[in-house]
């Protein structure tokens, strides 16, 4: 019918032509977002495994454990973060941030956790970004993890350090626990001054609360070991509670 033809003809209008472009744009964007989400999930899952691996540390297996963790962490970078980097060219880096942020945060958590256990120091953002450099196409501006994701990952790190501290105390590594305590307190204090300046500080605020809880859990554990140690000192005539406790645990179990 002529009506049908009239309809059909209007399909070739500039409007339809433009909308074909918009449709392509949206399809590509959504496909890419989906790929980024998947890469992020992979990063999360494998970073979590690295964190568990680091938690297996003890006085007796330190080197082997950290060696494996380091290898696994490198694998996360080579296999999954590199995939992310390839997707996040140009403006997509910020546009798709919500799609990859959980994975990157978890990677930061894992990488900083590993580093602290290895050297007792904080892995800087610049250092992390340096390790990502080889994954980038050298001809392009290299992709760098943004400050926000780094800080959010750091906030989660304190939870893992708390778990580590509690476990280390049981193994008699009191000095290590105290070191963790100081480290976590420092991070907490530094972040106190950073939080109000974050792009979106609302989720960071709940992370700060959790972080304070973690700090206090470590402090309470240190308190507990300290008062016990202080009670024993007169009993033993020793002046260093931690060395004493360490001694016992080594000999008896």
């Amino acid at each position: 019918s002529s009506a049908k033809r009239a309809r059909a003809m209007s399909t070739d209008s500039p409007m339809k032509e433009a909308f074909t472009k918009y449709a392509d744009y949206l399809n590509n964007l959504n496909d890419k977002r989906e790929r980024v989400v998947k890469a992020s999930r992979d990063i999360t899952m494998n970073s979590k495994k690295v964190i568990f691996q680091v938690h297996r540390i003890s006085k007796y297996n330190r080197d082997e454990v950290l060696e494996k963790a380091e290898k696994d962490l490198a694998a996360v970078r080579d296999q999954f973060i590199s995939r992310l980097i390839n997707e996040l060219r140009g403006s997509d880096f910020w546009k798709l941030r919500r799609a990859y942020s959980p994975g990157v945060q978890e990677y930061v958590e894992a990488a900083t956790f590993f580093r602290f256990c290895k050297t007792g120091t904080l892995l800087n953002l610049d250092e992390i970004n340096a390790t990502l450099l080889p994954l980038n196409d050298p001809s392009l501006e290299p992709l760098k993890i943004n400050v926000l994701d780094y800080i959010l990952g750091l906030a989660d790190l304190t939870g893992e350090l708390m778990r580590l501290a509690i476990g280390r105390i049981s193994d008699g590594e009191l000095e290590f626990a105290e070191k963790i305590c100081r480290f976590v307190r420092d991070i907490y204090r530094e972040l106190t001054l950073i939080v109000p300046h974050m792009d979106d500080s609302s989720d960071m605020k709940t992370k700060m609360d959790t972080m304070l809880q973690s700090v206090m859990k470590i402090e309470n554990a240190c308190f507990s070991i300290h008062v016990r140690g202080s009670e024993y000192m007169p009993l033993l005539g020793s002046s260093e509670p931690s060395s004493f406790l360490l001694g016992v645990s080594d000999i008896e179990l």
Partner: protein
Amino acid sequence: TSLDKQFEEFRTQLEESGSLRERIRGVAMEIESSTRLMQASLLLVHQSGPVPVEVLEKAKAQIDVLKDQYCRLAEVLHECPGQYYRYHGDWRSETQSVASLLAFMHWLETGNLLLHTEAEEKLGLNNLDFGLDIEDYLVGICFMSNEMPRYVVNRVTAGDYDCPRKVLKFLTDLHASFRMLNLRNDFLRKKFDGMKYDLRRVEEVYYDVKIRGLATNGESTGDQGVQA
């Protein structure tokens, strides 16, 4: 310590981006102010009686103001290359309103849909660095569609019986075009769902007019309400 140093640097960086955001918010508020003025002018197209040409002219006068404002926004963002989408939320809803108003005025003048590239051109955004986000543009178009039923009702009340036919044709085509898109369950999807109701309402008005023999037989005159 190196710890202090890094966090000191972060604080500096974040404060900088905070002040950047402050400036962006400043421009965005100006843009909002301009759209309010445009909107106030355009409200008169709903009023009974023929719409004087001046109404549209007055609204169009704001476009240059907007152009200038977007130019300044682009300059601010030029300072942080690649971070357009980091701050996007700060001017997003304002820009959707802008797109909506530009498209409405364009339709009043030409009877055609303002395309994305045309919208960018009107705002002076055709360079690569700083463009009009396509989703913002599409949301703006939906906003424009939302205004159509009210416009049609008021034009008919004012005695302009040819308006419903034109709007119906325009909205029918627009709706068909939108159906080409695959949307996620997001804001744009919700707005697009609303377009169906606009279309239906305009159709009803068209029938109201038609059935009472009030509609002119159309087609011949391509002009719009304003110019009539």
